[in-house]
């Protein structure tokens, strides 16, 4: 494919030139998705840990719901958030529509269920191992949650990476609530969609390669962090 070759060349050129527009887009992509993942972890991890460690009525229903929400398409989330934030919607007064804040909100709603569902799975295995010890100590729900979260920290890092992958790669939600406004809400994925619709396939693919590299770098950074932390800490 001649497109792929020129795309590689373009990607290389874009990165080497340190193109200001590209840096701005990459910066916004990272800012939006990293913030959304942090928020998602703040919400999803405690929820996952609570569901993993507590037995209550309707628990399997909650798990079913969490797992189903993992598959919610980004466009649907985008539409839901748009309807809320639209000037004619209930939260229009916030004036968040077509701002990075709206994009963070949408990606948080997208990623939080993923973090909650995946961490529930990870933490439930750990809880099975710890539960008699917890019971023996009569630990409170909160102590159980915090113990599980601390002890599963490295697995949870992988969970958050899965969430980051979903956030940085999605286009449907940020397109609707961000509007793909140049120099304001344009991120990697919406740029790729735009270049594709302009028929500039090499440029679209070039941006795609840059996105791939960013994902690789972020994953490599976190993995390095994890393995070195593990080496200095505990198995």
């Amino acid at each position, binding site marked *: 494919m001649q497109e792929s070759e020129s795309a590689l060349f373009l990607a290389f050129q874009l990165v080497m030139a340190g193109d200001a527009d590209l840096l701005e887009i990459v910066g916004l992509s990272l800012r939006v998705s990293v913030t959304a993942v942090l928020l998602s972890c703040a919400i999803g991890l405690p929820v996952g840990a609570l569901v993993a460690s507590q037995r209550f009525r309707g628990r399997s229903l909650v798990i079913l719901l969490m797992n189903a929400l993992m598959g919610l398409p980004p466009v649907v989330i985008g539409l839901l958030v748009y309807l809320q934030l639209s000037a*004619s*919607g209930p939260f*229009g007064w916030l004036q968040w529509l*077509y701002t*990075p*804040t709206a994009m963070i909100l949408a990606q*948080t709603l997208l990623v939080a269920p993923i973090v909650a569902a995946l961490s529930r799975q990870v933490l439930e295995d750990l809880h099975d191992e710890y539960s008699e010890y917890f019971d023996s100590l009569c630990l409170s729900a909160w102590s159980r949650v915090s113990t599980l979260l601390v002890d599963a920290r490295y697995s949870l890092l992988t969970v958050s990476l899965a969430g980051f992958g979903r956030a940085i790669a999605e286009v449907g939600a940020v397109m609707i609530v961000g509007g793909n406004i140049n120099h304001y809400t344009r991120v990697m994925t919406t740029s790729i969609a735009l270049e594709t619709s*302009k028929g500039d*396939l090499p440029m679209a693919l070039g941006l795609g390669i840059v996105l791939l590299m960013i994902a690789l770098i972020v994953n490599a950074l976190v993995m390095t962090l994890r393995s070195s932390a593990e080496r200095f800490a505990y198995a």
Partner: protein
Amino acid sequence: MSVLLRLFGVMLPAASVFRKLILITLLLGSHSAIADESIVLQSTTSTANSGLYDYLLPLFQKNTGITVKVVAVGTGQAIKNAENCDGDVLLVHATQSELNFVAEGYGVERFDLMFNDFIIVGPATDPANIKELTDVVPALQRIAGVNALFASRGDDSGTHKKETALWHSAGVPIKEASGKWYRETGSGMGATLNIAVGMNAYALTDRASWISFGNKGNFEILLEGDDALYNQYGVIGVSASACPNINEHDGQLFVDWLLSPEGQAAIASYRVDSQQLFFPNASSN
């Protein structure tokens, strides 16, 4: 739309998580919401994808200091977004819908802004043999007659509305052909052109989108010049009496500038591959 709104309006605020989320995001989201010195333009895609705004908006900003944020979607969605008060100015190309928009009180006034024309593009092999024709109606009849593939926007955009009207004039029941030779992509102009090139299908497009489209393959313009293919763009300032929170003043400044001799001259001077894409005609207002 309003039923949906009510539905979700009940669903989401009920979740306290959502409220907490808002508080948290409020703290993080200290970056400016849409600043005072900016307006949101709900626009059709062809004007954005052809690069017209990249050329016009810096000129306007230099004059007024106002930033224009462009949300480029299909005409149908642009109008709906503006009806939801999510824009200050509307720039689309479906005259009847625009007039309705004003009649229903959402817009201040509709103005002719500029025009270009629609064309039919297709594979150079031209299986329906329409290249020898000059009128669009018989051309569409030929395409339908040999069941040649045709890629339609199918997204309620201005181009799609135009295309539907043309099929109606040609007396071709496209609903029955949908999914057979008539393929509705449900996508923007660019995506539809990509699909058309991919499956060797004819397509109706505005000339600006075509000229600035980068993935033409072996496609060429097979029919152009019929008066029925005239493509008028209109501009409307959203009304503050319908949408109290919008920036009507700055929006109207933008509309006025586009219609002014300076704005019109700027539109006329925009070129891609040394071809003029849009022809200003505000004087016809």
